[in-house]
């Protein structure tokens, strides 16, 4: 009897491997996503001016620890998924009343202005990261990226890549609701 059980071993190994592959296919897990070390850390030091030719004071560290829950979105006009998620950001601001600020990452001012004029500007404030240094401080390695900052100015969540309704429903909205209490 014990010998016969041994014959099941290859089948079990196959099952485990196949299960792993299946999980990789359907879980939506992104193998390229790098676990963030920024979670639960205070917002990094940065101080950015506004996009050239736009009004507003720009964006700096102190703007993110003023007792409000804030969404920080890295975007650029050259970033295609940014365009795709833009409507969701507008919706979030409109219907959820979220405070959303943007960091315009390595973008020509003219193109960024045209992009915002075309798609709408949901950002309460925008900092222009022309050199990409602020992006490095935030550990950003690909656009778009979205961070959730709590009332104390700590990073609580980071979403790498395009926001979609699924991410909104599953993580972003519950988290915003919890932090907003």
């Amino acid at each position, binding site marked *: 009897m014990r010998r016969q059980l041994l014959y099941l071993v290859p089948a079990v190994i196959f099952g485990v491997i196949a299960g792993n592959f299946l999980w990789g296919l359907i879980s939506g897990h992104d193998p*390229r996503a*790098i*676990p*963030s*070390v*920024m979670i639960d850390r205070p917002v*990094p030091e940065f101080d950015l001016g506004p996009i050239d030719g736009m009004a507003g004071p720009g964006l700096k560290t102190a703007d993110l620890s003023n007792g409000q829950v804030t969404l920080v979105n890295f975007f650029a006009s050259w970033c295609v998924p940014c365009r795709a998620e833009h409507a969701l950001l507008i919706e979030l601001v409109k219907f959820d009343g979220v405070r959303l600020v943007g960091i315009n990452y*390595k973008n020509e001012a003219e193109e960024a202005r045209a992009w915002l004029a075309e798609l709408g500007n949901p950002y309460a404030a925008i900092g222009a990261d022309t*050199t*990409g*240094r602020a*992006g*490095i*401080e*935030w*550990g950003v*390695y*690909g656009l778009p990226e979205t961070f959730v900052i709590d009332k104390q100015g700590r990073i609580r969540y980071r979403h790498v890549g395009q926001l979609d309704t699924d991410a909104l429903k599953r993580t972003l909205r519950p988290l915003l609701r919890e932090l907003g209490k």
Partner: protein
Amino acid sequence: MRVFLLAFALMLAAPAGAVEPDEMLDDPVLEARARALSQEIRCLVCQNEPIDSSNADLARDLRILIRELMVDGNSDDDVKAFLVARFGDYVLFDPPMKPSTYALWFGPALVLLLGVFGVFLFFARARRASHTPVPLSSEERARLERLLDDPGGGET
């Protein structure tokens, strides 16, 4: 023959890297240090290439940043710590030894030990099996006794 020589010479050629002249430092010692360090830093965009040979925009930014930090007098370890604080251990091609990476460091050795143990077990069992003779079945014993009882040696 000439083809083989050429192929061999090509094999020896050092990879050029993606470092552009405008990124390089004037101080050759610092520049050499920066080059060596950039080969240990993973490009986060391409993920299997060091920033030294990556053409990604972020890799270029990081190369320049590394040089700035070095000019400011930071040691190699300072620069690494700076990058790890922002991007995590992932930026290092050589992962540090700590509890969360023990599986990575000791896992292969553990698998090897398990294998050695398995092989040992297999041979120990095989040896035991070949040394203990299989006892005769009752039929065989009966036949043996019949043969021994019959001095003629013939089977009837």
